[in-house]
């Protein structure tokens, strides 16, 4: 008989706030957060998971669905899978991590099958596990998270971390949006799984992803890496939110007159589309899909067809205007720097998983979308949950521990003018959406944007806390602003083109930059170069 899981304890519930006591607190309830919560619970921890939205529908995966880097464990297949993207990623990947992620993803995916995920079976009767339907997957993950004994707080965005006198993370606090009050969780370890930052661009399912976890981790002193690889843009119908890009591999792209745009393509020619969009409208039509392919498409991605079926467009026979929506670090690869195999960050007691963490170890500088990010979310989630549970166990009792709130911008009380989240978010978008700033980078333009962003930061830091209704917006905007500054500072530091980072003034890859760029800081943003992990080991062995 299995013993019923220990649950986190509700300490008090007074007017205005609710307090929990837990071993592990997970922030974010997408794939990374739910896998982390389940793993922490399986490793004996009492767990609370707080999500800004609703765990099960919130985040990029729930709305979009994902291809998964699930590769049969035959040595040749694994080798081919690893080798295939090393060049695209600019040779920044780490083979040891790729092997670990492929192994872990295989185990987690097979676990999903045991839990009843309805994987399809091919004509030979073989199950196919390299794709997950978002709503189906995340509905199952919510169920399993609850069954593991995890306490889920929905509509409960985290605002700031709690840290003890020794700088060890001690929990977090946040809002309960539908209750109009606050939560606090005292925890021995915290996993940040709040996803990436897509700057409120309305790319599918991603408006909850504003970099909140980056900001609150940075306030506790965490570092970031590969933040220059944060300019992923995805194709969608111009009017719509469905940025599912696989099927554009069967598209032709035309200009206003109907002429094919030379070189334009979803893969390997997306920058051509960006350039063309600066001149005028660009149209797509999936005219290269045969009847069978069309049928497979409809079955595989029902969400792809919603914008078309609901406007009476036949995307196979009619052309439609497209746009590119910024996905920032969601389909980029930058994020919190992790320092060990359990996804610990540089802050004791703080772990990172999924898009909140860097994906440089398996993707290098090329997008993690398409399969790697999903594999990373389940693998890093598993490891971070395990690491956090172990950290909590080793910490032992913390009953007399004092903790301090680490939140800064947007949370300062006083008489200063309150921070205006809506206006600030738009100002940040003005600096990160334009292709000429972010897609095609150049020192002068990046420098100009950074000066404006730094000025926005000074203003925001001096502002006071807005009222409770506006607090979330203000913190989201501040997190977007901080993220933009780490992105562009890192982009300036990498004086070459590599992966998705392209510099007009340094169009070539330059092996003097075969290293990672670390960044961090709030008032003063810094960067530094860090050798690749594989190189470090090589040097240590010499």
């Amino acid at each position, binding site marked *: 008989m299995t013993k019923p899981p220990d649950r986190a304890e509700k300490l008090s519930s007074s007017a205005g706030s609710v307090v929990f006591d837990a071993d592990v607190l997970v922030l974010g309830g997408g794939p990374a957060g739910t896998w982390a919560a389940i793993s922490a619970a399986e490793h004996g921890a009492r767990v609370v998971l707080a999500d800004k939205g609703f765990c099960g529908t919130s985040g990029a995966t729930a*709305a979009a669905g994902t291809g998964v880097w699930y590769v049969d464990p035959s040595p040749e297949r694994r080798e081919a899978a690893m080798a295939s993207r090393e060049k695209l990623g600019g040779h920044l990947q780490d083979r040891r991590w790729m092997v670990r992620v492929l192994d872990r993803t295989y185990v987690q995916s097979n676990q999903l099958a045991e839990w009843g995920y309805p994987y*399809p079976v091919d004509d030979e009767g073989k199950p196919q596990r390299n794709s997950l339907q978002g709503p189906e997957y995340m509905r199952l993950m919510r169920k399993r998270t609850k069954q593991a004994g995890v306490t889920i707080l929905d509509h409960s965005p985290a605002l700031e971390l709690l840290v003890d006198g020794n700088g060890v993370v001690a929990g977090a606090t946040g809002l309960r949006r539908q209750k109009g009050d606050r939560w606090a969780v005292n925890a021995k370890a915290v996993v940040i799984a709040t996803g990436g930052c897509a700057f409120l661009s309305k790319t599918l*399912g991603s408006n*909850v992803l504003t970099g909140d976890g980056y900001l609150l981790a940075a306030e506790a002193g965490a570092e970031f890496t590969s933040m220059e690889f944060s300019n992923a843009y995805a194709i969608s119908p111009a009017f*719509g939110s*469905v940025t599912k890009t696989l099927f554009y591999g069967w598209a032709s792209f035309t200009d206003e007159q109907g002429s094919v745009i030379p070189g334009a393509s979803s893969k390997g020619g997306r920058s051509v589309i960006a350039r063309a969009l600066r001149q005028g409208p660009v149209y797509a039509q999936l005219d290269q899909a045969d009847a069978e392919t069309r049928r497979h498409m*409809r079955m*595989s991605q029902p*969400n792809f067809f919603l914008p078309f079926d609901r406007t009476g467009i036949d995307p196979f026979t009619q052309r439609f205007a497209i746009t590119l929506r910024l996905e920032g670090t969601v389909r980029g690869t930058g994020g919190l720097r992790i320092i060990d195999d359990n996804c610990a960050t540089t802050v004791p007691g703080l772990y990172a998983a999924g898009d909140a963490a860097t994906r440089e170890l398996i993707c290098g500088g090329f997008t993690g979308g398409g399969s790697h990010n999903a594999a990373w979310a389940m693998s890093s989630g598993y490891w971070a949950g395990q690491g956090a549970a172990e950290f909590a166990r080793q910490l032992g009792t913390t009953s007399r521990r004092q903790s301090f709130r680490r939140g800064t911008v947007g949370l300062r009380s006083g008489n200063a003018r309150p921070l205006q989240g809506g206006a600030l978010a738009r100002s940040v978008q003005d600096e990160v959406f334009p292709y000429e700033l972010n897609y095609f980078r150049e020192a002068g333009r990046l420098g100009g944007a950074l000066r404006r962003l730094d000025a926005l930061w000074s203003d925001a830091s001096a502002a006071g806390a807005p009222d409770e209704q506006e607090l979330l917006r203000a913190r989201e905007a501040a997190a977007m602003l901080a993220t933009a500054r780490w992105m562009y500072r890192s982009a300036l530091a990498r004086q070459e083109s590599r992966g998705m980072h392209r510099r007009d003034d340094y169009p070539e890859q330059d092996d003097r930059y075969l290293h990672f760029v670390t960044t961090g800081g709030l008032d003063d943003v810094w960067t530094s170069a860090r050798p690749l992990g594989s190189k470090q080991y090589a040097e240590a062995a010499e």
Partner: protein
Amino acid sequence: MIEVIDAERCTACDICVNVCPTNVFDKTDGIPRIARQSDCQTCFLCELYCPEDALFVSPFADAPQAVDVAALKEATLLGSYRRAVGWVEESRHLRAADRSYRLFGH
């Protein structure tokens, strides 16, 4: 963006209020209210979770659109996403119909 909660079909179960990731709806004494439409991210998930096919998310992400509910019903667009992913009894087989493995690597 979310445009419609059909008063004829809605049973005030409030599932949409719970599942919306961006907290667009408010509970009321009767059927929920679209209280913050501009926060809608056009993810279609409220519609997917509505057991009565009472919701309609317009695919226009950046601007509200006038919607004719009678025409939507006529065209059986209400609930079309649920049927397409197999979240209704008649189309359950579609839950395992993913053919992505035939499309990857194109």
